[in-house]
């Protein structure tokens, strides 16, 4: 069972606001989902390598050359709030 405290801890890690109702509902749903995926624990996979990319690519490199990208004004244009040529954020607490 995942406790209410754990749900709150995970929500905080994810910087996700949840109402008390959502916290309660989420706990039950996460429990049910985690129960259903518990099945993978029955496999003994100690010696099996993990797969992160199905094509088994190794490092992909490119030459480090300057090229045109978004102009500063353009990159700032979707920002909810800006100050001069910067993204603006509230006080860092």
């Amino acid at each position, binding site marked *: 069972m995942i406790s209410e405290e754990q749900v709150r801890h995970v929500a905080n890690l994810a910087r996700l606001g949840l109402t008390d109702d959502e916290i309660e509902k989420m706990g039950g749903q996460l429990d049910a*989902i985690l129960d*259903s995926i518990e099945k993978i624990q029955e496999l003994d996979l100690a010696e099996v390598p993990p797969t992160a990319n199905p094509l088994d690519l190794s490092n992909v490199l490119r030459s480090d050359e300057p090229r045109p990208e978004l102009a500063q004004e353009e990159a700032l*244009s*979707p920002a*909810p709030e800006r100050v001069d040529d910067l993204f603006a954020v509230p006080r860092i607490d």
Partner: protein
Amino acid sequence: MPDNLLDLTAYGLAREVEAGEVSASEAAEVANARTGEVEDEINALVTITPGLALERAEAVDARNGERALWEGVPLVVKDVLSTRGVRTTCGSRILENFEPLYDASALLNFGEDLIIVGKANCDEFAMGSSTENSAWGPSRNPWDLGRVPGGSSGGSAAAVAAGEGWWALGTDTGGSVRQPAALCGIVGLKPTYGRVSRHGLIAFASSLDVVGPMTRDVRDAALLLQAIAGHDPRDSTSANVEVPDYLANLEDGLEGLRIVAVPELMGEGIEPGVREVVKRVARGLESAGAEVGEASLPHSGYGLPAYYIIAPAEVSSNLARFDGVRYGLRVPEDGVHEMYRKTREEGFGDEAKRRIMLGTYALSSGYYDAYYAQAQKVRTRIIEDFRAAFARYDVLLSPTAPSVAFRIGEKVDDPLAMYASDICAVPANLAGIPAISIPGGLSEGLPVGVQLMGDHFTEPMLLRAARATEQVADFPFQMKP
């Protein structure tokens, strides 16, 4: 000029445009008019772009002689693919007013004047199997307006089935192209992972996501894949593998092909009516000359649980970018952390929140090895299963989805029942192999999809098998309603 352009496949229309019998502008007008006629009922599109479609179509017409075969055929684009200057919401309030600054690479490959009919509705950030997780309400299945079109690319599938344009792009992370294609009676192709660039596709699960065609028939799927495939230096996971001619061997038939059913995907949890259609098509393939049989994928039962660890883990990381700073919604608060929390609380819907929570939990200290690392090892086992099967056979066959289209609201409060919609689809995503859904026939008056899977980069052979399968199934495209 043919009487009704909506009777043509995308390929048929492309040929008419090439021959000068029809202009791209005429095609765009037909698509716009049909969209105006049915969109209120279907809700396939989040944003319609009739003016843009006409403007681009005129530009395509003006380039007569210097354009690719497919460029004159209007397209619907799933709303997770960035379109420069055209609102792209991902089905989420957090991007309600977001206008991307560039086009997705897959769209740039299609051509410089993409004739977009509209941006297709989808489950929020492509997470879901019904479009009910869209902030803009569900799309409706053109075969039965009380039922879902599937998802997450349900708007794309519904648009094609309803004739709002001749073809559409979807994305497939755990069946999101194939399952809605099956439920709406159209063809849906998930290409090999990396075959189509992900640049400009707003990321869900980066090790699984792929852009794919949703079309009236298999030849259209081959043509649309031709239009969008290719290596892209802007996507470091895109495959640097030559793009073959997907139409060249399409009509070569079944001779020499070994097509076998996967027993693990034909049993428990599959509706009897769905199983019946798939078996009938398999028998038809045998009579038509394919070598048929069975191939086991012993770990496929672990696919869904592994998927529901890997995909949420990746999404919890990918959705961290929606923080109210650079784009999208911001809920003003005094401190930055409270601003993050409130913005994400108001911006994300229930399913996005659930997956962020699940993924964050699975990646958190003390649980990483038991969940994420274990799921990645299951992924290795599933790849080994496929490798063993493809050493002996060419194509694997199964249902695409375990059921026909379900009623709107039926599974919305039961995440596990919804997740089970993807049971036949996720193994191909975990292995990164190509897979295609072909309309196989009807069960309870609703379309059933037959899934074919091939090894990495075998799309030419897979499409050839699919072309023969659609002839055997003899269930051609029908525009609805």
